[in-house]
């Protein structure tokens, strides 16, 4: 194929756009490993800032990971059965419930946090524990889990599958765990990755809800930007990046696998 001038013009534009987005990321990452960012790279490369971040904020990072796992646990236990009910018993009540469930995504995180503070702020043991932040995270991420699982569930003929299993003698729980859950696995996996990613990165809500002892990774990041030298903030970003990237890539892979058309069936001989 002969390439025209238009092709090269488009190529240039695409490359420029990519650079526009990628350069700040590279700059930020480099700043995290530069001895003195104001002198530039000539000052030399170092891992010092990374270690310093680790010393200062390791607890925040671990708290974030712990919160993400706890949040995943709660959304799995609550979200999968919820999705099942929403798909299996469609009606006005379930529709209304679904809307309610989605509300926390639409409302600004700050407002949601404020509501939580007004209602439960006085319960001191709860207010100061990580469970308070977990509550916010669950409210915010649950709709993503439910949506993701419900989408897969409504694509399979759950009613007939269940009837098939029931005719073979399987009671409700057996049907649920041997037929419904395994077949909803793609949705559950995608939802799980989404929940973990959102929980690790959540800032709005968490910033309002946190106490000095319950600081999460993004809250610590804001803290580092505001009060530490630029190199430390950048090193922090680098750590965050390393944590979140594998999750995002896994999510992309899962999404691709889900959208592939079903394999063609073999012909009858």
């Amino acid at each position, binding site marked *: 194929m002969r390439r025209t001038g238009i092709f090269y013009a488009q190529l240039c534009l695409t490359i420029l756009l990519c650079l526009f987005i990628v350069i700040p990321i590279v700059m930020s990452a480099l700043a995290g490993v530069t001895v003195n960012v104001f002198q530039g790279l000539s000052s030399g490369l170092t891992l010092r800032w990374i270690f310093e971040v680790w010393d200062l904020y390791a607890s925040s990072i671990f708290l974030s990971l712990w919160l993400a796992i706890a949040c995943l646990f709660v959304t799995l236990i609550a979200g999968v059965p919820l999705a099942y009910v929403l798909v299996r018993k469609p009606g006005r009540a379930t529709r209304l419930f679904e809307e309610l469930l989605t509300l926390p995504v639409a409302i600004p995180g700050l407002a949601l946090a404020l509501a939580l503070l007004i209602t439960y702020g006085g319960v001191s043991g709860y207010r100061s524990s990580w469970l308070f932040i977990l509550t916010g995270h669950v409210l915010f991420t649950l709709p993503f889990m439910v949506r993701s699982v419900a989408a897969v569930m409504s694509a399979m003929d759950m009613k007939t599958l269940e009837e098939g299993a029931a005719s*073979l*003698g399987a009671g409700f729980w057996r049907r649920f765990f041997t037929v419904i859950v395994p077949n909803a696995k793609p949705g559950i996996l995608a939802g799980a990755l989404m929940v973990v990613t959102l929980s690790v990165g959540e800032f709005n809500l968490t910033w309002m809800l946190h106490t000095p002892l319950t600081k999460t990774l993004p809250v610590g990041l804001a803290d580092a930007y505001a009060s530490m030298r630029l190199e430390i903030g950048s090193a922090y970003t680098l750590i965050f990046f390393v944590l979140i990237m594998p999750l995002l890539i896994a999510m992309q892979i899962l999404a691709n696998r889900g959208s592939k058309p079903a394999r063609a069936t073999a012909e009858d001989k």
Partner: protein
Amino acid sequence: MTNSPNQVDRAQDAGTAITLTNCAKTFADGTRALMPFDLSINAGETLVLLGPSGCGKTTILRMIAGLEFADAGGAIHFGEDDVTRQSIEQRRVGMVFQSYALFPNMTVAENVAYGLKVQKVAKAERDQRVREMLEMMHIDMLADRRVDQLSGGQRQRVALARAIAPRPRVLLLDEPLTALDAKLRVRLRTEINALLRKLGITAIYVTHDQEEAMALGDRIVVMQKGEIAQIGTPQEIYRAPKTPFVADFVGASNCLKVDIASGRALLGRVDVDVSCAWNANTGTDGLSEIYFRADGLAFCSADDAHFTATVEAVSYLGEKLRVTVAGIGDDAVMVDADPDSVVTLGETVHCRLVPEKLTVFAAN
């Protein structure tokens, strides 16, 4: 559900008789799906529920399965057991669905083993039974395949094997062949027929296809708008339909209005004795409707003819020529002709009714 050895033994017997007494079904929105009816199915019998969509045939099947419950006052017995209030899990039925309902997360063998696992059959025996089932359905080479790698015909074979493996008391088949193409449908139908005879299991088969019903049923129940229109052997249904609806549904869709006096009627311009078309179910003097299939009318010479008609359409079906003619009754009538004969559109033809192939109903 308890699995006493005694119960398992009984399932291996010829089959379970099923009795439905005074069963009716009204749905939550108030629609009456089934008028109250009684129906008994003999042990080991294959009963076909036949009718157009919305006639209630699937509702009966689902009531027997335990997926729907009869209105208060109805009772369902499997042999001596009253199963009216039992859920589907407790009834030990085998079910085959139009959409197969195979579990996509399991292999073919795992699908077939599912019911046995639920029954807590020991692994060695389970594996053995799964192998037997797969061999019987000629799908043993597919044991480790995933179900999404199978064709429609293979899937339905797996579904059959899965339903039969736990030795159910009754096998329920809900339009199992509807999703398959015509050629495969006939082949699988033959296989299912042989299988049901071999197992001697009580089977209830729902279909809207009268050919399928004739081929499979020991008895056929023809359903119309929530009521049983006729129960009988395929021959009875075919030869002596009780109502115009049944006649029409099993293929006698040509209809003529005549007045019968002392067993004779004026067909076109000829007075013919039609009393030979009367049967145990129907036929009497008075204003009547004559129903007949495409072979109930024949082309003939002008001298023998009852009617003179005009050819409206001709379709070549291979083994015969199906000709639509106008001018005999109010509606056009279909006639079969020799496939090698030449019939042209608009041609004037002579034809006569074959009295033995008519069914006569009093007109209302």
